[in-house]
Structure formats: C-alpha cells, structure tokens
C-alpha cells in the first residue's frame, strides 16, 4: 500500500480523510499536518522559489523558515508544517508558483 510507506504503525491514526492536492486525491488522517500528509505520500517539492525557480520543500519543520508554504483554499498561503488537514481541504502547490511567476513579470 503505497500511501502507507512513510507512516509508522506505532500509532493508530485519526479517521481517514481525503485531501485534494491540485485536483489529485491524497489519503490523509485526522491529526496529520499538511506537510506530514504530503511527506507520507512521498512528495518533497512543495513549491518553486519565485526568483530562480529552485525547488523547495520542508526545511525546519517547526514553523520558523516558511519554506513549506502551500496554498489552501479559504486560508491562503500557510506553513504546511503548522496546519492540520481537514476533511475536504483543497491544497495547491502550483498556485503559489503561478502567482510568483505572475508577480515576477511585473516591474519588481
């Protein structure tokens, strides 16, 4: 079961719920952070840095560095390591990249 790869069996997770990530359904469990659910799924690249386009993902894991930013419908840009998944949550990793490249074409 691919999605269970990164999850340790020493705990019984919360109820399963679906997380929509750029239109793709990802299995997550109540109590997991967005970063946790993405990591368990094998995702490492959460966004691309606006200036160079370099890939970025989780770095500090405790809310200090703001590297793991993702876009959540209704919440905007959030630190994925600090926000717990909710049923029906819609997450986008592409939205931030698109917004950043849009901004880059302005005068800045």
């Amino acid at each position, binding site marked *: 079961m691919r999605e269970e790869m*990164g*999850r340790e069996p020493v705990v019984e997770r919360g109820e399963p719920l679906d997380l929509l990530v750029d239109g793709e359904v990802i299995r997550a*469990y109540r*109590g997991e952070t967005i970063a946790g659910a993405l*990591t368990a799924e094998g995702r490492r690249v959460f966004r691309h*840095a606006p200036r160079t386009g*370099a890939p970025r993902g989780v770095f*500090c*894991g405790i809310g200090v560095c*703001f590297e793991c930013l993702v876009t959540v419908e209704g919440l905007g840009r959030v630190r994925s390591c600090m926000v717990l998944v909710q049923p029906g949550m819609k997450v986008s990793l592409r939205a931030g990249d698109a917004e950043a490249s849009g901004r880059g074409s302005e005068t800045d």
Partner: protein
Amino acid sequence: MKQTEVAVLGAGPAGLAAGLAASRAGARVTILDESPYPGGQIYRQPPDAFRVRRPEILGKEYARARQLSRQLAASPVEFLPGTLVWGVEADKTLLLYREGQGAAGLKAEALVVATGAYDRPIAFPGWTLPGVWTAGGAQAMLKSQRILPGRRVLVAGAGPLLLPVAKALVEAGATVVGVVEATTRLEWALQSHRMLGYWDRMRDAVRYEAALLTARVPRFFGHVVVRAEGTERVEQATIAAVDRQWRPKPGTERRFDVDLLCIGYGFLSAMELPRLLGCELVFHAPQDQYLPRHTPEMESSVPGVYVAGETTGIGGADLAQAEGAVAGLAAARRLGHLWGADRQREMAEAQARRRHHLGFARILDELFAMRPGIYELAGPDTPLCRCEEITAAEVQAAVRRGAASVRAVKGETRVGQGPCQGRICNTLVAHLVAHETGHPVVEVLDITPRPPIKPVPLGALAGLVEDKAGAR
C-alpha cells in the same frame, strides 16, 4: 480586552514549569503557544486524533510530555494553543493572532518568555534542495506525526541531537548511511571527566550509542557535509574530513546516495520577543548569539519580564524546567502572592537544579561551539537568505560596495526581509560580513524586529482595533 496576571509565552518544558509554579504560588496564569499541543519541541507528542498503541516504545520523553500535559489539564492554568504572539506593548499587552479567530489583545502584569530555540542554520551548496531537512524538523515529523521523511538518510552536524535523531530514524525503518559529527572523539574524551555526575545525560548518550552500534550505523567524527546534490530533490550528499577550524581537508571527500539529509549544528535561541520587549541583550560567544541578561531569579532587564529555558541559552529540557520554575515563582512573588516557607523551599530546590544543569550546558556549549570553517562552505551561488534567494556572492558584492553590517546589507540586498524575517539567514550573513570586513561578528550582527514578528493576515489587525476599543 482579556486580562491575566502571569502570561507565559511558550508551552515547552520551561513555559509549562513556569506556568505551573506561578499557579501553585497563587497567580492567575495564561500559557500561550503557537502549536496546537503543549510540550514544545522536545516534549512534542502525537496529536489527540492519534491513539498511541504502545506508549512505552515512544520513550521517556513521551511519558514526560504526557505527564506535563496532565498536570496542565489538572491545574487552573489557562492554555491558549494555536496562538501566535506577534507583538507586545510596553504595558505588557500581548498582541495575539489565532487562526480562524483573528487578532486580540491580552493584558498581563508579568511575562515569562519561554519561546525556545530552533536548529542553527548552516549554509552549504545544495542546502536549499528538498529533502535537506534540519535534524529538529526530521525529529518533529517522526515524534509527532510518526511519519518517516526518508529511506536512506545521512545525519550530519555537531552536537548531542544527532544521536537521538539517528536512533529515531533507524527505529522508524530508515537506513542511516552515516552519522557525521564535526567534533572528534578526542575532543569528547577531553571533556568526559567534566561530565561525571550528570548520570542521566550519560545514560542517554550510552543508549543512543548502543542503538546505533546495533544497527551498524557508520560514524564519522571530524567530518562535515560539504555539499548536497540533486535535480528536484537531494540525491547525493558529500562529506569531508575537517581540520581543527572545521575547514575541509582536500582529498578526503566521500559521497553517499541519500533521499534525506538531516542537518543539525545545535540551536539558536528565538530572540524576537526579548528584543521586542526591549530586554537588554549580551553577546554569548559560544552560541554566537545575543541573549537576554537576567538575574539569578530569571528576571530580564525589563521589570516584570522573566526569561526561561532556551531563551536564556541552549541548555536542554532539564535546565529549562528548573529555570521555568524559578521564573514562575519569582513572577508570582513579584505580584504579591503569599510567600511562605513552602514557596521558599520550592525556589531553593529549583535553584539547585538550575545550577546543576547549567554546568552541563556549559560543557556542551564549549565542546560543540561553531568554528570558522563551517561558515565558509557556501559557494558564490549558494543562497544565504532562502526567502529572498540572496546568494553569498550578492552579499559579498554589497559588502564591497560599503555595507559593513547585517543591517546595511539588508538595506542593499533585501536579505532577511522575507517571511522568516532573518531567523534563518541572520547569523550566516553576519559571518560573511565579518569575514569580508575583518570586523568581529558581535559588531556586525543586528536586526531589531518590528511587529508583526511573524506574518499575520492584514484583515486580522482590524479585529484587534475593535478588541482594544471594546476594552475602553
């Protein structure tokens, strides 16, 4: 607006000890933390939604975390989780932000700042690649989420955190291809006589060492990671032997295939709130950082503002709890709560613990202090400021144009102006500026934070205005 007597910022070991002690001494206490659960980084626990099947295998830190949580729940202390303190006013009014509830104020009569620490960032080529995590970040993911962030892992840095992180990775099923420590076994041996008497810590170390030996994890002493490589994520990590100044020796490189590189060079104390509160800071050379000056009863230079735990310098959970208890008791006494023989005894006992654990913190401080070579690993193209993507070469160019301090470089390059507000890049930029100008680091370090110290949605500020108006 809400009011309290003692507001404790941070619900780690120091903050919990402070809040519980102040409450026992009769004070009305509110503890605030950004995270949804008490415990802080060290006593981080799985979320309530998880059921822990076998608590014993989660170790003694988990047991301690549960114990503190239970004490908190059984006490009259008010706990505000998921609360960001983004500013503070001179009359000790805290400016709060809670997701979904907007901004609010909390007026306190005394404050205990126990906002902890985070992994000390060290820049090297490839350190921004996905899959390069801080050791503390990997530990948090394992401890709280019980999710394994990699299968083939190299753990590298300097200091006592590397061993428990490597052990936790092994236990979660990862192959740890090496634990790379910058100091040498000889340097450890030369300090070992000073560690006698700290039996708990020695026992922990022996347990970690034994677990790594059993798992046949290769150990490299006197080595550092010099670069990480990969296209979209880390694929290889290269280490090299270093001299006494931690400068790599040519011809000693070794390369590992990895999908996770954990970096841990000790910690930086979070200084945003002490700075914002106007606490007088003094440079603490072994930690390369300005830290708040405080009395033996943990009061900072600002009357009624106490500091405890990693806020006063890196010292671990035992020292944090002792300092927290001292600070909480002192705050309650200051507010005029009854100070009988039992409180006096409690204070004396906490002070004795504080002095004992401080001794061990000093040993680790010296043994694992950063050395100059570690700040020279970044190449010209290596970003120092991850938020604004400012490279070492751009910082160098700014210095050559005359920017002789972090503040000046910030003005020239946008370094430290992204959402992390310089938490990650400050010391890195300071060391490069110091290197380029020949000035000591203590003279070029700077950056006074202005609220909000972490980004807050603008709409939330409107709510605060209403909250404060309603209070008048």
